[in-house]
């Protein structure tokens, strides 16, 4: 029986954003997105938890080197998003509404190519202490 272990790494980034559709009126945006659509942006301390599941390497005992994951997340995610405006400063959200759901999917797609294909990857993203998303959903 294979022994699969899940390892978790926490990182964070602080960013501004707003939620809106450019093809909707201001009234429609306010109705659907409420205060999140305010035009001068607001922000969050995002907390990111990266979960990798796999078998521990028989030589090192690691599923994955945590320092390597931290460096990967810093390079692929934090460098892109930290202290930025997600709507204005990033390619990923130029035409994509930066909801927590979309941010989690984007982060997954940024990290997945770098993770061993035999290992599972899951992203949990806290937008606030009370609102968080997971992708892929179990």
């Amino acid at each position, binding site marked *: 029986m294979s022994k699969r272990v899940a390892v978790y790494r926490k990182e964070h980034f602080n960013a501004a954003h707003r939620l809106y559709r450019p093809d909707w009126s201001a009234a429609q945006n306010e109705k659907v997105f409420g205060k*999140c659509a305010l035009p001068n*942006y607001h*922000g969050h*301390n995002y907390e990111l938890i990266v979960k990798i599941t796999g078998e521990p390497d028989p030589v090192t005992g690691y599923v994955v080197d945590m320092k390597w994951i931290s460096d990967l997340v810093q390079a692929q995610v934090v460098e892109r998003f930290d202290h930025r*405006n997600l709507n204005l400063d990033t390619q990923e959200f130029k035409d994509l509404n930066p909801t927590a759901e979309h941010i989690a999917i984007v982060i997954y797609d940024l990290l997945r190519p770098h993770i061993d294909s035999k290992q599972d990857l899951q992203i949990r993203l806290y937008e606030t202490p009370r609102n968080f998303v997971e992708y892929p959903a179990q």
Partner: protein
Amino acid sequence: MVYLTRIEHFNAAHRLYNPDWTPEQNDEVFGKCANTNWHGHNFELFVTVKGIPDPATGFIFDAKKLSVIVKERIIEKLDHRNLNLDVDFMQGKLCSIENLVIGIWNELVPALPSRVQLHCLKLVETPKIYVEYYGDKFP
């Protein structure tokens, strides 16, 4: 003396920059916090009042009423806003949390009943950074 604290929160955008400086000077002093397109935080505001419990209620002040006052007077102005652009009491001020906590204090004191003494405001910007203000006037 007993100290009662109510915690509220708001999510806001801001940037740190001095309008009298060049972009290079702002980058050198404020780093990533000077990003022209803003960044943001989930802020937490700890409002501490002090007093002696009223023998009739056991309260220094009703924490629910304190929450209503803080939400109406402060949170409504800050939540889901841009602190540099949208907040009347921050106009013309550099938008550090040091200046923000002083601005919040000055807005809040007149809104509290005279028998309620505001003791301290603690404003948390990130899990590692917060400021406290006890209302001291600067010389």
